[in-house]
């Protein structure tokens, strides 16, 4: 029988210095964080760079983590939100952490094929983001989490660090505004919410 450790177990182990446990958390949630960042930045390459910065932030703030039903994803998306808002600082911090760990890698990004394949999706996202800009910021955030990233309302409350009732009311207002603006809420909903 294969036992899968919960995020809580992995987080406890990582906080105790078990780097492989942290690596497993990365394996589990990097994709969701990456796509959240893409929808925020409209740039796959920026999303790539910032994904590692989010996990570095998470590691350094591990004493503050709030798990939602054993899932670290909502809290990681909160970290992602902060990281995007402080983009250049986050990149610089990650760079310094690499330097301190003597890990300044000699790597070059070379994903030309993938980039070409994603140009169309970039265009599609731009249209969706343009529509979202018509919402107030707090309503945008709730739509990003609940509609785009597929979090339920309780997880979104953790991600935004607000009470559940606030999430409910913001989401309700956002949906009302979307209807008034003639914007359909159709979206993907396939993002993981549990470990």
């Amino acid at each position: 029988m294969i036992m899968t450790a919960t995020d809580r177990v992995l987080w406890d182990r990582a906080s105790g210095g078990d780097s492989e446990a942290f690596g497993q958390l990365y394996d589990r949630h990097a994709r969701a964080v990456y796509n959240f960042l893409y929808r925020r930045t409209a740039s796959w390459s920026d999303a790539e760079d910032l994904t590692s910065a989010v996990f570095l932030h998470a590691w350094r703030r591990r004493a503050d983590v709030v798990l939602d039903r054993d899932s670290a994803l909502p809290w990681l998306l909160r970290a992602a939100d902060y990281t995007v808002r402080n983009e250049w600082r986050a990149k610089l911090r990650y760079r310094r952490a690499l330097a301190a760990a003597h890990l300044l890698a000699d790597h070059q990004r070379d994903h030309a094929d993938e980039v070409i394949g994603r140009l169309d999706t970039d265009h599609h996202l731009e249209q969706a983001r343009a529509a979202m800009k018509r919402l107030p910021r707090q309503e945008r955030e709730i739509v990003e989490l609940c509609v785009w990233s597929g979090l339920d309302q309780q997880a979104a409350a953790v991600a935004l660090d607000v009470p559940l009732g606030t999430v409910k009311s913001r989401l309700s207002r956002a949906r009302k505004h979307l209807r008034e603006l003639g914007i359909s809420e159709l979206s993907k909903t396939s993002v993981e919410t549990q470990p």
Partner: protein
Amino acid sequence: MTDLTTPPDHDLPRPVRDRQRDELVAIVDHEFGAPRRRTAVPLLAAAATVAVIAGLAFGVPALKGSRTTPTGTAPAAGGQKVASGNTSAPQPARTRKLSAAETAAFRNQCIEFTKDYQNSFASFEVINAFEYVKTARPGLTKSWLVARKGMDYWICSRSGDGSIAGDSAFGPNISPAGKDVPYLFAPVDGRGEGTGMYIPSITRVTVQHHGDDPVEAVLKDGFWFAPMEQDSFPLPKNGGRPITPDNHLIGVMPGWTIRGYAGDGKLVYDSAKNGPRVEKCYSNPARTEVLVVNSVKHPTPATCERMFDWK
């Protein structure tokens, strides 16, 4: 009808994912102080370490080294200690402009340092390159290179030992998502290794490490430059508290105090007394939008700290 349908999720490219995973594992090992630790440590030790880490806030790295607060210091707001009685008579900044050859070599060094960044700075034009003639310690930043492309800026700094201390870049084409980028958290804002920006009414900036005399910063084109220490996250090898307590300030390294003076010589900003704190939220200067939430639960433009226009 417009809809909010977004493109399907993608996986990180495999090479990127593998690299980032390896890097993060190595960083965890390094910052926890145990090379390539693969097994969980006893719970008691883990709890003690978490308590230590809790003192280090995101974005405000601790200092390296083991300086002790000297006699004659006084506690200031925010829990920092700053030297008293010597805040107004720093030595004038003695700097020299780098030669063309020195600038070219410095630039190459910086390009090499940033070669794996998404944004290449090779097309940026160098607008300033200089160094302090003398700094108190080799580990302090000593040289700066400022380059610009349109409204985007790139600043690279070098320590006295010749190694690149760090770089920072910002601008509309570099950080389009960072709405706080055009604004400053404080009249004198720290952004990088001994570098920052200041509002137009500031005419003089000093930086001071506890135990040292204040040092006059060079002010040019809205940027200030002063020898400061490259940051890191040193944890005592045998447990205990961090060497330098976190100051919970944005852009001010623990142990350092940044001060700004107006044209009449009046002290108008002292980071130890009214530095921007990580617990607060920040609105744009017009107070129409909250730009940085931090951990504030119900931020509004009216209740958040107002950010400052740069220039």
